[in-house]
């Protein structure tokens, strides 16, 4: 006799099983359908592009678990075990149904391999889930929460697997087929259950296992386990329908489909919490909580029966008040397994707060008023904008003057124009450009704000106004090539402006080009060790990691060492997303955390490439009391030291 399994052995009243299955499936599909309904109701019309690429990415992420393993090996392997265990058992059960109801093929060798794979699936699932429980409750990994469903769901899995093995053991104990060794776990449990007991209790085991499994199917869409469907959907939509820039006429609270799916796909893994520099500095903000609040809000406002979740419905009251903490540094998106941008959810909420008006903090209120009145957030006169240039020897072309011409427009930016320390960037960069014989000019007092602050703090009307000012100015003076001091201006000009007629670059990109075309004649050996702080809007947002490093390494005598958090894992200085103009308290300052890391490398100089980073780090250097001689410099300032002839 070839190997096989008797289906529904000893089971009576199978109609009851079919009824329960039907109920479970109906609940499942109602839940899944409700999610789709809410997503559609919450979001603008969807247009998909690059579906093939998105599907491929989704499949690779699902089956290899690469996104999860990257960044946290232990958690990744744990999930890998749970995923493959669950997948094998689920797929196996489906295959078995096909065998029973459609076409019989599960005999002999096929059945033996099937049995073996199911055993492996059970073990993988059990190992993964127990490991997960240990991580959460024994090891107490800081980023993990311990809410009711966090214990319930893994224990449910444990029960499902154990009941399965017991059931299998009982069956094998009675039948004792000669191929029992293939089911090695079941064979072992069979040894623990006497034949007589097994025969009597088998139906009880069977029904217990069936109820656990059907119950699980029924609650998937009503618990955090929805990520089984939500996470793949989020990965797909984040790629096929990326979050589009918000339009001025968008209805308040309207989401992109990728955002709506992300809120539901989030299963509170807390990787964003571990990566968030604000949380890390002990501030009252955690991206995960914000996303969960947004999810709840979405259901409360769009779904007739309010929140669909059975567990974890409470505990997010007032989380939205933390919306001003986020520096929009993108660290959360960098690690999110489902590619969700918590900082964009924050921007959405900020937009609502700005429209509402009463919830805008006093300092931010004043800053936005200043931005509108003076085109800069620094309480300074438009007239003083080009004042730094007067401190240089030799005049800099003002492109807004009659007859002025230059190949390149240097967009200095508000902070670099007005802040005493940041003006060093403008001065040194101008000198570097002169040394390299680049024909450039500035817009002087005509230069407006690029709109970055308005965009990040949710004042989209102001952003639009400033964007129009910039564009009409570039248009008027025939400017087609723009280089910025600030990665924030660069990102805004290059990404947030759409259908532009000009090319925008950050100065590090230009320096790299000048270096490659051998425009720098180095004059001095510096003999220093430096470390480089990746500005968020240069690195993470625009993936420019190597250009500044190449420039640093090209300077004779400069040794570059890296900090613990570097490149895409860089820590934010705390100045982005409007935080520079706010007074929010945490246990520590993000910049102080960062400067300690910089000092720990043993470097003598911390190099940055952003005016906000420069100010924040310089202040932190003074406040933290770093060792004698430790300096914070802009890349241009370092470069100039090596270029300048005495």
């Amino acid at each position, binding site marked *: 006799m070839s190997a096989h399994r008797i289906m529904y052995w000893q089971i009576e009243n199978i109609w009851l099983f079919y009824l329960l299955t039907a109920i479970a499936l109906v609940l499942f599909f109602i839940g899944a359908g409700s999610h789709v309904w809410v997503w559609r109701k919450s979001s603008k019309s969807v247009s998909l592009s690059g579906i093939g690429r998105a599907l491929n990415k989704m499949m690779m992420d699902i089956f290899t678990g690469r996104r999860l393993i990257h960044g946290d090996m232990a958690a990744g392997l744990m999930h890998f075990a749970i995923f493959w265990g669950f997948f094998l058992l689920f797929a196996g059960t489906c295959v078995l149904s096909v065998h029973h109801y459609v076409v019989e093929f599960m005999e002999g060798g096929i059945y033996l391999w099937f049995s073996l794979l199911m055993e492996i699936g059970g073990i993988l699932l059990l190992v993964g889930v127990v490991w997960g429980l240990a991580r959460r409750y024994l090891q107490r990994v800081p980023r993990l929460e311990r809410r009711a469903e966090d214990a319930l769901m893994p224990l449910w899995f444990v029960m499902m697997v154990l009941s399965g093995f017991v059931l299998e053991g009982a069956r094998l104990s009675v039948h004792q087929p000669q191929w029992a060794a293939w089911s090695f776990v079941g064979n072992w449990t069979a040894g623990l259950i006497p034949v007589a007991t097994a025969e009597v209790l088998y139906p009880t085991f069977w029904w217990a296992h069936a109820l656990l499994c059907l119950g699980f199917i029924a609650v998937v869409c009503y618990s955090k386990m929805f990520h089984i469907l939500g996470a793949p959907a989020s990965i797909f939509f984040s790629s096929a329908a990326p979050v589009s820039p918000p339009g001025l006429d968008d209805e308040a609270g309207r989401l992109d489909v990728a955002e709506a799916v992300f809120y539901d796909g989030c299963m509170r893994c807390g990787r964003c919490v571990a990566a968030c520099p604000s949380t890390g500095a002990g501030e009252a903000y955690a991206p995960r909580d914000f996303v969960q609040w947004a999810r709840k809000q979405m259901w409360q406002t769009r779904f007739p029966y309010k929140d669909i979740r059975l567990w974890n419905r409470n505990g997010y009251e007032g989380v939205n008040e933390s919306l001003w903490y986020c520096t929009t540094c993108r660290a959360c998106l960098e690690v999110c397994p489902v590619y969700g941008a918590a900082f964009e959810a924050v921007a959405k909420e900020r937009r609502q707060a*700005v429209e509402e*008006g009463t919830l805008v903090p006093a300092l931010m*209120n004043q800053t936005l008023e200043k931005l509108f*009145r003076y085109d800069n957030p620094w309480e300074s006169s438009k007239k*003083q904008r080009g004042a730094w240039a007067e401190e240089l020897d030799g005049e800099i072309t003002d492109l807004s003057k009659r007859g002025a011409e230059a190949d390149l427009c240097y967009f200095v930016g508000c902070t670099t124009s007005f802040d005493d320390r940041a003006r060093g960037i403008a001065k040194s960069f101008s000198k570097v450009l002169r040394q390299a014989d680049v024909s450039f000019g500035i817009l002087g007092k005509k230069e407006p704000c690029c709109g970055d602050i308005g965009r990040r703090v949710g004042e989209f*009307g102001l952003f*639009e106004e400033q964007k129009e000012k910039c564009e009409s100015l570039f248009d008027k003076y025939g400017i087609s090539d723009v280089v910025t001091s600030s990665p924030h201006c660069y990102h805004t000009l290059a990404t947030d402006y759409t259908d532009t007629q000009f090319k925008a670059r950050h100065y590090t990109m230009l320096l790299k080009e000048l270096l490659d075309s051998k425009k720098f004649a180095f004059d001095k050996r510096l003999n220093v060790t430096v470390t480089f702080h990746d500005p968020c809007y240069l690195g993470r947002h625009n993936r420019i990691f190597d250009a500044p490093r190449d420039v640093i390494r090209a300077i004779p005598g400069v040794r570059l060492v890296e900090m613990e958090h570097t490149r895409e894992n860089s820590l934010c200085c705390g100045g982005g997303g409007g935080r520079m103009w706010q007074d929010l308290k945490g246990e520590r300052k993000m910049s102080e955390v960062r400067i300690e890391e910089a000092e720990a490398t043993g470097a003598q100089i911390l190099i940055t490439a952003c005016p906000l980073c420069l100010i924040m780090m310089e202040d932190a250097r003074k406040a933290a009391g770093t060792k004698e001689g430790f300096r914070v410099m802009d890349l241009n300032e370092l470069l100039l030291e090596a270029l300048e002839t005495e």
Partner: protein
Amino acid sequence: MSELNIIVCVKQIPDPEAPLSDVSIDADNMEVIVDAPQVISPFDENALEAAIQLSEESGGKVTVLSMGKKLSDSVLRKALAAGADELILLEDNGFDKLDSHSTAAVLAAAIKKIGSYDLVLTGRQAGDWDSGQVGLILGEMLELPCISLAREIKVEDGSVIVKKTVPAGYERVKAALPALITVSNEVGELRYISRTRMLKMMRGGIFHPGPPRRSAFRRMRSKS
């Protein structure tokens, strides 16, 4: 609580927080020349916020009153965008450089013309000259009970209870309605008015020119 009709007097001034480089002195004419955008005087904005909050609680109407020589729509319509129901502008070349007493007289005449009201709010002082007189003189002219330097305003059963700032802390003062109150910054900053909201208000709003010249009295209402 019965509905409240509140009149808020606001003054348009050059931005008192303008950078120093935008301010120069004309010694010959003994004048300070401020090359800065016009704004609503900060304490008047506080008064406006207090009025809006009171009307949000109890219902009623907030009327904003301003006078001057060259009044700017784009500056003063901010009051409508913030939530005031009506904006009345008193505009005349003669209203330039009036002293506190004359200013109060003009405002008093306008308020008598408006007729019914429960509360008149002004800022504790204007952000340009900081005299702090108009509010109290206005109260005298209207024969109203006056409370100055309010940090908190509550209306209960036909009277108003005000926490009034004094050097050692605050006093709680009660007066019968109608009353005049000068408002201090502690009541809170005027809510933020987004640019989109402001632009909507610039397009909307009903404009009542009234008889030209002589009366110098124009009304604007918010659409809603």
